[in-house]
């Protein structure tokens, strides 16, 4: 083995460590029920699922978990429905403009600091009476999820040979039948990817939720923040909650790669 190779491997391991270390600490925190005091301060003395039980037994936290997933699923469904028609007309080339616009400017909500976005939305929401409402938060989360979903669905529609729609028509299909028999089956992987990304985006969204939704709408992310020092010092609960936050996303991403072959690196 060449020296360069060795250095490369060491660097790669360090990088991997760097990526996974925080996750490891988080999971450790959530499982450790008792820590050694002085020696071996970094190792738990006892492990168990005590904190998870506690999390689920605390009504407000349980409600936050429930709320998080309901919002995330609503966001995913809403954003997909919202994007289907635009993605269809742009992806299939029925209209020639729009695609570049969304490619260039569509990701602004994702790149602009969420705080700035929230500051912009706050007065509007307060005027409209959307502050602290479920639909207000769904809409706020959707803004950032739109680019992922739009890009995936547009790619999906673009990947479908326009002659397939024509072939379906020639053989007597129209409207809904074409969607059901041709577009939906072929779009499935792209829909899945779009849904997972929107779902993950919503679960991870913290700033806007805090700004526009709290205290009526509290999601896991908000609770984590509170328990990790924002309001109290309860790293074990924060760890358990964070794990609950991360694990569903990881599982979904894994399933997505496995069954649709879509790698999130590409989206």
């Amino acid at each position: 083995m060449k020296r360069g190779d060795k250095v490369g491997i060491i660097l790669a391991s360090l990088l991997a460590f760097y990526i996974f270390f925080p996750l490891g600490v988080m999971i450790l925190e959530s499982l450790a029920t008792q820590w050694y005091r002085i020696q071996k301060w970094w190792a738990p003395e006892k492990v168990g699922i005590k904190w998870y039980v506690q999390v689920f037994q605390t009504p407000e936290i349980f409600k936050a978990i429930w709320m998080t997933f309901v919002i995330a699923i609503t966001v995913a469904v809403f954003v997909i429905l919202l994007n289907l028609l635009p993605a269809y007309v742009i992806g299939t080339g029925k209209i020639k403009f729009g695609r570049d616009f969304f490619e260039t400017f569509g990701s602004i909500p994702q790149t602009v600091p969420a705080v700035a976005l929230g500051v912009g939305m706050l007065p509007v929401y307060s005027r409209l009476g959307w502050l602290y409402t479920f639909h207000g938060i769904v809409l706020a989360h959707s803004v950032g999820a739109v680019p992922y979903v739009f890009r995936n669905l547009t790619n999906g529609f673009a990947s479908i040979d326009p002659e397939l729609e024509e072939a379906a028509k020639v053989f007597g299909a129209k409207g809904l039948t074409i969607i059901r028999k041709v577009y939906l089956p072929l779009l499935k992987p792209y829909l899945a990817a779009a849904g997972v990304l929107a779902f993950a985006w919503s679960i991870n969204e913290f700033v806007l939720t805090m700004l526009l939704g709290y205290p009526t709408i509290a999601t896991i992310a908000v609770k984590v923040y509170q328990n990790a020092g924002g309001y109290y010092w309860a790293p074990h609960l924060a760890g358990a909650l964070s794990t609950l936050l991360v694990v569903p996303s990881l599982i979904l991403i894994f399933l997505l790669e496995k069954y649709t072959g879509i790698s999130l690196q590409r989206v």
Partner: protein
Amino acid sequence: MLKVVNLKKYYGKTRAVDGVTFELKRKDEFFSLLGPSGCGKTTTLRIIAGLIKPDEGRVYFGNEDITDVPVEKREVGFVFQSYALFPHMTVFENVAFGLKLKKLPEEEIRKRVKEALELVGLQGLEDRYPRQLSGGQQQRVAIARAIAVHPKMLLFDEPLSNLDAKLRERVRFELVELQKKLKIPAIYVTHDQAEALVISDRIAVMNRGRIEQIGTPYEIYKRPKTPFVADFIGISNFLEGRVVGVDNEKGIATVEIKEGISLEGFLSRNVHKGSKAIISIRPENIRLAQKEGVNVVESKVVKKTFLGDSYDYRLVLGDIELRMKTGPEVELEVGQIVKVELKECIVFPKERR
């Protein structure tokens, strides 16, 4: 029967279809649209299918104007140039697609799919997906899908382009047989002139969005109306000259192609004495001659190519080069001076372009 009148379709400045008119004579006519790439064959076919709205013109089926009938109501069988098979369906599901939409009983669907697949020689591949098939097999699935629905008309867009010669001949033959059995009109798009000649009842030769000539294979081959048709169908020699005599009664004109050399040919259209003309002669219509006579000229052999069943000779007549096709028994040597008779010449007026 099926009739199109003055179809026009422009894409910006491109005149994809520029005033196409034709009518099928019989209910079971096999009609070909033949022409070079980009001449508007596919566009014409898609207008007939209802996939494209023409800018102008009408489409009639029977006595009915179907120009505004949507594609899904026209009950056509269409074979797409790029197959357009549904990638998420098996061969069986692809062929059964239209039948299921017609809500035919399960039994009937299975029977028709089987028939169609047998016709194209694909039995046993029902459960494969299109991506698991070769290009030629995919193309045959597309044909099976079109015929399985027993449509009111069959529209083929170069449906055999991806098959090898043997298979092409077989499927071609069966297509015609089936079409005659179903007693439905077929419109067949191709740029392969040999295929159009064997398969068609009549052919429309297209060029730049327009029809140059409509006729039986015999007429198209023997009596081309324009130099384009003469050139596109088979091989032709072209000579230029000046008209020195016209006999409208017999439909014959005499054209001087060189000082002292005149050729007689059939008139394709009216020409005037003294005007410029083009003469076309097919290589197989140039024969060795024993004695002097009409259309007999002396020329020199400059090239000889053996083609198995024939010889391809290049002759020169001053600065004019001619291709001659003879049987394999006609042995000439390069450099030899021979007398040849130019038969079945066609005279075209030379158009100013």
